[in-house]
């Protein structure tokens, strides 16, 4: 039974529901990933995010800050792509742009072939609810809710009934490996466990894209590695596109492509196999 708070989505997004569907990550052309994704060929695959000539300028106190100065990039469906850049390079701005959190001053951003600048508040919220899952460096779980409730919150917004929520929530918790902690609040969970809950929450509505902002930033080496392996496994198994902003070499190691951004422009984009990454270890590390 629909509550009187439901509102209809505009036709722009309506068309997407028919063609894109909720299993956005499982669209045609998802690659049979090789063991390390290196040999995957993305040519001829549809793009889940297209950025065209995007600039973003902030007017702060009379001066203009040019965060992005003309950025073009295509992110393919099912890809695992990392964005790197120093502080002030526009990395966060670009990241927010591809994640539908910000609109460009100039140029266009297409997420799943929808121009985000044309979306109104409701359609944007719908997109964030159904198309994109977010993972944050500081987990950002709701402290007053248990792990299971955190995971099912996006499903509440999506209008799913209680049985569906519980069933899906349980499945997601098993997929990320915290089924035994479902009734614990975030304050009772370790960092790694909280991040797993956050990942499960990001997947709640089967998004096409997962946007991960420094997911291993607050985690130690070993836990960070577990999270990275979890994300890679999800990427491979369900074909969900993963876009991360990161400084972590271990995350770059499992990426399909790496984007370097500097001074508001893309400096270079390389496939993983074209980049030499040497991972270091510390003696005595578990």
């Amino acid at each position, binding site marked *: 039974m*629909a*509550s009187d*708070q*439901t*509102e*209809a*989505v505009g*036709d722009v*997004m*309506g*068309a997407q*529901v*028919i063609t894109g569907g*909720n299993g956005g990550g499982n669209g045609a052309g998802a690659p049979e990933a090789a063991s390390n994704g290196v040999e995957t060929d993305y040519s001829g695959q549809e793009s889940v995010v297209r950025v065209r000539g995007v600039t973003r300028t902030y007017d702060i106190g009379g001066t203009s800050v040019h965060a992005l100065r003309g950025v073009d990039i295509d992110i393919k469906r099912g890809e695992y792509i990392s964005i790197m850049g120093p502080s002030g390079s526009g990395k*966060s701005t670009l990241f*927010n742009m591809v994640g539908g*959190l*910000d609109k460009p001053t100039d140029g266009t951003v297409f997420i799943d072939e929808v121009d985000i600048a044309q979306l109104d*508040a*409701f359609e944007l*919220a*719908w*997109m*964030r*609810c*159904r198309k994109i899952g*977010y993972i*944050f*460096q*500081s987990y*950002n779980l*709701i*402290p*007053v*809710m248990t792990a299971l409730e955190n995971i099912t*919150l*996006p499903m*509440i*917004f*999506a*209008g*799913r009934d209680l049985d569906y929520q519980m069933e899906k929530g349980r499945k997601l918790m098993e997929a990320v490996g915290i089924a035994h902690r479902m009734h614990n609040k975030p304050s009772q969970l370790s960092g790694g466990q909280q991040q797993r809950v956050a990942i499960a*929450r990001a997947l709640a*509505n089967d998004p096409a894209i997962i946007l991960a*902002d420094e997911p291993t930033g607050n985690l130690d080496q070993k836990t960070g590695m577990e999270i990275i392996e979890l994300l890679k496994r999800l990427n491979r198994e369900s074909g969900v596109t993963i876009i991360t902003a990161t400084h972590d070499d271990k995350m770059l190691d499992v990426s399909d492509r790496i984007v370097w951004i500097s001074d508001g422009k893309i400096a270079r984009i390389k496939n993983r196999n074209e980049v030499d990454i040497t991972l270091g270890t510390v003696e005595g590390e578990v």
Partner: protein
Amino acid sequence: MATMNSNPAKTERQISLPFSQAFKIALRNITIRLGRAMITGAGTMLGIAFLMSVFTSAAIQQAKGIEIQVEQQQKNTWLVVMSLMVSVVGITNAMLMSVTERYKEIGTIKCLGALDNFIIKLFLIESALLGFFGSLIGSVLGMGFMLLTGVGVLGTINWPGLLLQMLMCIAIGTTLSVVAAIPPAMQAAKMQPADAMRTEI
């Protein structure tokens, strides 16, 4: 352009926060921050206690057969209005602090797809609950203390009239609490999802 009339498709197109869920979340938010909630509620409680005590005092004087002067009534009205305004300002202040503290939570909920009005709903329900319980306790306390001065005439007090005034007090308290929460709720609703990404205030 597809027409979507069937029910499964309708589910696909909605974003909703059912009232029952919003109520649950708001109640949780109160119970988890009970100390802060009690202080916010105390504002309403004291204001309504004063209002109820004025009503009770009038009822007692009526029972004793004492005529209430018009000047006295006006003065009482003025005092009560002032005290309620102080309560409202206190509630607005406390909720603004709460909103500022929870900027990350609000930003995150928006990233999950919450509409602006969901945020407003959550804060208003929270404030309504605080207002209701604050007014309930306040009116009972206000009436109770004032009745101590009219112990002799307990039998002749107009109880139905007094109880009706108590219900009025609870209604006033709850409404004022909701009104007081509107500015903070609107501020919370304006927060951007990208705020959840920031690591400092």
